[in-house]
């Protein structure tokens, strides 16, 4: 069974703080993704990675950065948290190649509140 875990289910941070969200997958997947989910906007891609040390910007990368030092771990960093980054953050992974690679496996999400 594919398992994607996220370090925190709920997080409250202050404006200006640096925030780290961690994601770990146990299926040896090459691809990893970070999304945020907001009401009425669906899931929007922040960053993704095809391999260790590789990263690509998604649709809304501003204010975020990522790190992938190991294949199973993908971290999302909010350099200076702002209230408009209050959201549900979802991590996902998928294998490389073929139509099956479109099927992404999601973690449970981190509800981040920035005050």
């Amino acid at each position, binding site marked *: 069974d594919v398992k*994607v875990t996220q370090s925190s*289910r709920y997080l409250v941070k202050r404006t200006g703080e640096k925030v780290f969200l961690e994601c770990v997958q146990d299926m040896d997947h090459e*691809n990893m*993704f970070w*999304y945020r989910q907001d009401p*009425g*906007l*669906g*899931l*929007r*891609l922040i960053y*993704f990675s*095809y391999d260790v040390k590789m990263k*690509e910007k*998604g649709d809304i990368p501003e204010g975020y950065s990522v790190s992938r030092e190991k294949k199973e771990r993908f971290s999302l960093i909010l350099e200076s948290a702002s209230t408009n980054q209050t959201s549900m953050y*979802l991590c*996902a992974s*998928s294998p*490389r190649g073929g*139509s099956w*690679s*479109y*099927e*992404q*496996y*999601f*973690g*449970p*999400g981190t509800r981040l509140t920035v005050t």
Partner: protein
Amino acid sequence: DQQVKQNSPSLSVQEGRISILNCDYTNSMFDYFLWYKKYPAEGPTFLISISSIKDKNEDGRFTVFLNKSAKHLSLHIVPSQPGDSAVYFCAANGGAQKLVFGQGTRLTINP
């Protein structure tokens, strides 16, 4: 620029009846589509998919229909059950193994 649109934010259906969730897309390059289901406080889980070379794919109570000329797909759930109450997201392959998601439709099954 919303390339995948789910125009109904919510849908309410009686238990045992058919639920039909709709999704429209604008990019004719999309050739693979997926539906995900999301319960509160959980991540989305994959439900069913369809390739553009097909117009229908069935898996138990779930069937997805694709109309390429209309750039429209729909998810049919028959019969609907209380456990089907969730938010459903439509997604399309956005190139480079990425997915583009719709806004989601909240389905409520009433007993």
